[in-house]
């Protein structure tokens, strides 16, 4: 195709072929024959049959497509990036986050903010951890960069709430103690090994 053809913007003048009509009727007699042919063909009844099959399939063969959403939920893919979650340490139930600040650094929309201090045991302690979900673009860099796998994208996709605070408090993001058993682990550094059940022990402080 030459450049002049590409530059021709007068597209309606081109030689187009109507692909829907193989033999377009030219005379009145041909038109009449086409009409009769189509009338006798019964295409409309094929449509009725298809719709009927759809209905019987939906009613009697369990092919109904409706998910009654608030009562019934579709399973969500494990790699889906929904609202963040802070995972807890299985041993103590404490926050796994070590306050390294990498997620804050890598966040391309600058929505993660953390405040840390050195506590009396000269360990780093996370005082505040907030994610502004109004700005988060769910890129997943924070979860990818976290060396302890403390922050992940969890499966909570129902992002509507009455209060903004529901999404930004550390207490909401962190797995609560009683749900610790159900905490789903992500493989990688910081995650528990497959034989963790034998190895795991409570931290001395909890006795």
């Amino acid at each position, binding site marked *: 195709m030459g450049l002049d053809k590409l530059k021709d913007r007068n597209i309606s003048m081109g030689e187009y072929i109507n692909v829907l009509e193989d033999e377009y009727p030219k005379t009145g007699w041909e038109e009449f024959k086409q009409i009769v042919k189509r009338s006798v063909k019964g295409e409309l009844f094929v449509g009725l049959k*298809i719709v009927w099959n759809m*209905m019987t399939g939906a009613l009697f063969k369990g092919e109904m497509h409706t998910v009654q959403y608030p009562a019934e939920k579709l399973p969500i893919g494990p790699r889906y990036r929904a609202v963040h979650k802070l995972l807890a340490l299985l041993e103590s139930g404490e926050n796994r986050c070590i306050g390294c600040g990498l997620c804050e650094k890598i966040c391309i929309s600058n929505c993660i903010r953390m405040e840390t201090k050195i506590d009396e045991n000269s360990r780093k302690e996370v005082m505040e951890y907030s994610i502004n979900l109004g700005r988060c673009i769910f890129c997943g860099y924070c979860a990818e960069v976290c060396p302890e796998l403390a922050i992940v994208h969890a499966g909570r996709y129902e992002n509507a709430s009455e209060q903004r605070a529901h999404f930004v408090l550390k207490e909401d993001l962190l797995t609560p103690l009683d749900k610790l058993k159900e905490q789903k682990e992500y493989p990688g550094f910081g995650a528990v090994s497959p034989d963790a059940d034998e190895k795991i022990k409570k931290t001395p402080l909890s006795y």
Partner: protein
Amino acid sequence: METGFIIETIIKAIVILAVFSAIAGFTTYIERKILAFMQRRLGPMNVGPQGVLQIAADGIKLFMKEDFVPQNAARPVFKIAPLITASTAFIAMSAVPFFPEFELFGYTVRPILSDINVGILFVMGVASVGLYGPLLGGMSSANKWSLLGGARTAIQLLSYEVVSGLALLAPLMLVGSLSLIDINAYQAGGFSDWLIWSQPLAFVLFLIAGFAETNRTPFDLLEHEAEIVAGYATEYSGMRWGMFFIGEYANLFTISFIVSLIFLGGFNDLWFIPGGLAIILKVMVLIFFFLWTRAAWPHIRPDQLMWLCWKILMPLAVINILITGFVMMF
């Protein structure tokens, strides 16, 4: 005129009005459910078991909505138009025999409001007056979509009046009477006596015309939402809009009753099925067919509609009348 007859007539009128308004409401529910099943959805589910109370919820909503009259509308005409649709739909039922006669507490009840000897003519006439509802509603709304809907009302309903009238002529020639009871009695011999066997073409033509006259979906150019928002009903809200739709569904039932009376053997006993049940079954099948086509078939353009009416259906109806006449003559 004796008092008993007047009281009986009033009671019959109230029963028709009450029963058919309720059925018209219930048909909206059935329509939503069946259309949903045909599209593999569930339809209304949350109000009541399987959503059956949706009718009540819709009714409450329609009554509560603001009754809105546009600024430049012709106010009296705008307000009267839905009344015309609803009332003509019910008046047309006054000459329709719904069931065979039955005994109630030793008193013979004839389930027809007035047995006039030109029953079918009366029904067709009143039904065609019904076109003033959408027409005046569309023209008085001060809205371009409504105006287009009103114009389409005129072309569509008037044109298909011709087809339905001509299609009915052939079976009426065979029967030799305009009374719906006579037409019903003509087919008393059972399944093989049905007029659909001797007049199949008239049946098809009348059914197509019935689709167009009741403004059902393959032919609902009056309120074709893909082209003209909601057509003649664009500016209507609340119960005025509701009245248009009660009228539409009442018309649907009238047409179904007429088709089963004229072509499908009416309320004569069918094998072991008693006549009263037989006609209800026929009407239900026809209503289901109306919904089925709504789910299956696409809208057509106004020019296609007119083309179909004047170039295909009307000549076919005339040919049918001619053939019937020749067959009867020789």
